[in-house]
């Protein structure tokens, strides 16, 4: 009688395909050198400051104001992008109209257009003498060089995230579900709000979180339109650049750490939303 087999967990399931060691090794090396090591440098530097050091920087009035502007305006912009993004995704998947494909392609413009280009274009459009800025001025709205300008740039940058996270889910909605709702006597509005929308909520939240995270970190498309007035329209990433140019590495690291921390919280939130969605609706 042979000894019973000892079931053991392996690091990797055996496979006939070759190259696992080589490709995984290469992947880990690149990941380590390009991504993890430099990020670790930030963590090391920040931990040198200690929590109190970081707190000191964060509560500096100028820094606090910049963080407030970055996070507050980004939340508003992400909300706007989510609402219009949903509407655009709905229109693009549900309705047939001439030029639909071109409109669909246009949505990705902020992904493809370099941020500096978007930045100067938005700045010149919304400047008091610009095409849109002049019209807004008549209404008494100052867009450029105020948080409104930051908001506009963040909506621009966040929109494709909002559209592209919801769109595939709208595509996959089973029409029979809507037909079932209709045969049970529900009106269109009732069907939409009670049957169609609820399963899409996780995707909308994910899109919001992605747009928010992107807005908080965004730099290029904002600095031209923002005017960068301390305490008014100065964003946190710009403050990092300013601290760096003053060789205040500690200050730069502290702000970067706070921003990274909040991005991780956002990432975590996205993962939780998706885990919840998987449980509740069976998909991400």
């Amino acid at each position: 009688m042979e000894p019973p087999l000892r079931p053991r967990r392996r690091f990797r399931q055996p496979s006939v395909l070759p190259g696992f060691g080589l490709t995984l090794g290469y992947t880990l090396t690149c990941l380590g050198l390009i991504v993890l090591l430099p990020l670790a440098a930030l963590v090391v530097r920040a931990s040198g400051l200690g929590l109190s050091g970081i707190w000191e920087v964060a509560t500096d009035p100028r820094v606090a104001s910049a963080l407030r502007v970055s996070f507050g305006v980004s939340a508003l912009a992400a909300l706007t992008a989510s609402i219009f993004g949903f509407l655009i995704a709905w229109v693009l998947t549900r309705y047939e109209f001439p030029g639909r494909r071109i409109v669909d392609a246009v949505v990705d413009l902020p992904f493809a257009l370099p941020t500096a280009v978007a930045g100067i274009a938005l700045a010149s459009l919304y400047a008091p003498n610009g095409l849109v800025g002049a019209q807004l001025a008549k209404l008494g709205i100052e867009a450029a060089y105020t948080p409104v300008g930051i908001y506009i740039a963040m909506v621009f940058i966040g929109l494709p995230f909002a559209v592209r996270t919801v769109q595939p889910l709208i595509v996959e909605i089973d029409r029979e579900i809507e037909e079932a709702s209709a045969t049970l006597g529900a009106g269109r509005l009732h069907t939409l709000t009670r049957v169609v929308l609820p399963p899409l909520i996780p995707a909308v939240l994910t899109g919001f979180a992605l747009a928010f995270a992107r807005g908080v970190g965004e730099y290029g498309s904002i600095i031209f339109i923002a005017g960068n007035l301390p305490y008014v329209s100065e964003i946190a990433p710009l403050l990092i650049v300013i601290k760096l140019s003053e060789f205040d590495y500690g200050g730069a690291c502290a702000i970067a750490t706070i921003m990274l921390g909040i991005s991780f919280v956002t990432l975590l939130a996205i993962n939780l939303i998706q885990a919840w969605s998987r449980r509740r609706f069976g998909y991400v």
Partner: protein
Amino acid sequence: MSEIATELPRQQPASVVTEGGLVRGLLIAVAIVFLALFLVLPLATVFAQALAKGWDAYIAAFHEPDAQSAIRLTLITAAIAVPFNLVFGIMASWAIAKFEFTGKNLLVTLIDLPFSVSPVVSGLIYVLVFGSQGLLGPWLLDHDIQIIFALPGIVLATIFVTFPFVARQLIPLMQEQGTAEEEAALTLGASGWHAFRTVTLPNIRWGLLYSVLLCNARAMGEFGAVSVVSGHIRGLTNTLPLHVEILYNEYNFVASFAVASLLAGLALVTLGLKSLLEWRYAGDIAASGRH
């Protein structure tokens, strides 16, 4: 039969799974106006401003030596960063998509990390490693190696921000394709490399092209991260986006928008090719939805 048919109303009743015609029209209008205002108008502005003082002024912007060196630097940077990420993406997706191993999800998350880091922070971390006050700063200074405020820093920062592009496109695609075709090739006597070249690569070619396209657009257009590590030395460490910034801050709007129009043109070409690929090879680019 025919009598009954003629009695049906000529207008088909609205489908039960869509909104009324008026609502539909209104929603389409809102979507188009919003996109026009927020996305198309800025793009059009770039070209309008670039040509505001006529064709000659536009062309003159590119004859400037600083502009030419910026173009050169941008091309060099992309020529290094894109192939690097291409090789990395293929390697990573082979390991991740074709094998089962512990810690895979963590690895995928880590590869995606650069997407969730602010561009400015992406630049900052390299300054912290290679800058004069950085971890390796003194050593680099002793050996007279310049990374920050020089080409290597720009390339590194660019690689960082475009790091996940190819891998995150290929991983789900290769996962969906499974391993049966490669196994079939092996049973027929093909070596691993032969199977990769003749079976795997043709299967992912459109997805690969697609991701390289997007990776390249980002590599050439990256501003924040490169701005932090470049030092803005005119004619030396200015990429095209940085050159746009300098010209704009000098109130040289025509030249600034002219250079910007070059990048906008690149974006349009990218979008066009991307859409073309999506229409023609949708199934070959991305894994088909969730499973």
